């Protein structure tokens, strides 16, 4: 299967939230008790059962009034996923050839290491079964020739899905058309995400959009430095004590053998 990319052109988004609903419907995710937090954002945050959320940002304008920024927030499906690097169970988090990063709840042991290692704070725990959940890139649809449910439901054409090269080219072309502060977000981070954004404003204007996301330095120290080093140190100690015995020999009490 060819590598795919989902392009989210937020300049076209009208915040109708059909993607949010389609996601719930296809993935059979239950509704949750929500809360009015003073904006139209509903529910207020991603959760184990809300994998796709339209975030509303009100940008005050100099001439009075506000400008509304809408952004579809969900897993970005990194080429180098922090969640997968952190996961202790082989195969519990896997990547498909299309680029989807998928958590297999049957293998999840609820350690929450993916939750704390994602640069985008995407995976969420279901408190009832203590397992992590997030967007699956609709791998069950795409592997059967369908496009993800959110892209299918988007009436504005803000969410499109296709082959990687085509979509990247399309993203840059669109950003050029928009001009101004418009940029492409995603292809430069974590070896390229499989969800790309075209955003008309600066990254920091959007709620919870991470400026220059990368694998946390702590994760590199933990998995790439200390993990091999600990095996090496223990091995060195084993070899060291062995040769200490062979070269220096044990320390015996003087009288031993004399009594």
């Amino acid at each position: 299967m060819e590598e795919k990319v989902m392009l989210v052109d937020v300049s076209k988004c009208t915040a109708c939230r059909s993607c949010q609903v389609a996601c719930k419907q296809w993935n059979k995710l239950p509704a949750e008790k929500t809360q009015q937090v003073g904006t139209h954002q509903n529910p207020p945050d991603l959760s184990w059962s809300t994998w796709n959320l339209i975030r509303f940002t009100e940008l005050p304008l100099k001439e009075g009034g506000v400008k509304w920024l809408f952004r579809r927030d969900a897993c970005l499906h990194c080429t180098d996923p922090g969640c997968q690097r952190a996961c202790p169970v082989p195969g519990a988090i896997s990547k498909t050839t299309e680029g989807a990063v998928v958590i297999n709840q049957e293998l999840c042991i609820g350690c929450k290491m993916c939750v704390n290692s994602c640069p985008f704070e995407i995976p969420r725990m279901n408190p009832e079964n203590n397992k992590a959940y997030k967007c699956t890139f609709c791998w069950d649809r795409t592997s059967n020739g369908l496009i993800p449910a959110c892209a299918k439901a988007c009436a504005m054409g803000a969410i499109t899905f296709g082959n990687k090269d085509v979509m990247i080219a399309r993203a840059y072309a669109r950003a050029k058309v928009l001009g101004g502060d418009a940029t492409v977000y995603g292809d430069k981070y974590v070896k390229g995400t499989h969800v790309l954004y075209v955003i008309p404003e600066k990254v920091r204007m959007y709620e919870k959009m991470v400026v220059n996301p990368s694998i946390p330095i702590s994760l590199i120290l933990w998995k790439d430095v200390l993990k091999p080093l600990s095996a090496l140190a223990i091995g060195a100690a084993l070899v060291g004590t062995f040769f200490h015995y062979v070269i220096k020999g044990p320390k015996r009490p003087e009288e031993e053998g004399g009594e």
Partner: protein
Amino acid sequence: MAKPKNLILSSTTFERVVHWVLAGSCLFLFLTGFGLMFHSLSFIARLFPAVPLFTDLYPGGYSTMKLLHNLCGLLFGVAFLFALIAWGKDTLYFDEDDKKWFRVMGGYLWEVEKVPECGKFNAGQKTFFIVLFLFWLIMVGTGIFMWFPILGVELTRWFYVLHALGVLVLGSFLVLHIYLGTYGNPGTFQVMGHGLVTKGWAKKHRPKWLRDVEAGRRSV
């Protein structure tokens, strides 16, 4: 129990039991911890049964292994409190002789005419205990907040790093500790075994302590 001639009690029953609980829980934590850290050691997870009681689905033995790692961490955490009671007063300080001991590394690395005399524990053993004390705080502290990550993403990420650092330090220290307590120092293992050692051993390894015991200044 009648004490055989020329043997002397080097550790109390309390000390020996605490030592074995620490040793057992520590080794079990290493076994399960390695199973969780290295995907290549997934065979360790297969030693544990998948218990449907803990999970509706089947992540094999991994769920069980993780839960037992957490629970065993609590056991280790509590057991070390007793270790502090048993050995804290003899280990958490250094004196002049300890400094001299360090200068010759206790005679372990090169030929030394006279190793400075020590009491119940030499400077190396004291260092081991102090490091263990420090990493006991780190491992139990980070472990609990990795189990229940209520302190936020940023902090929890660094707990993983500290926990892995503990594996490095404690793992290599444990190897040295086992070597020095067994075939590196013949006779020493009985301090952890039945507690009785020869006077010759005590004179070699605990000269100041032996004088104190023989003069009745301390019992063990």
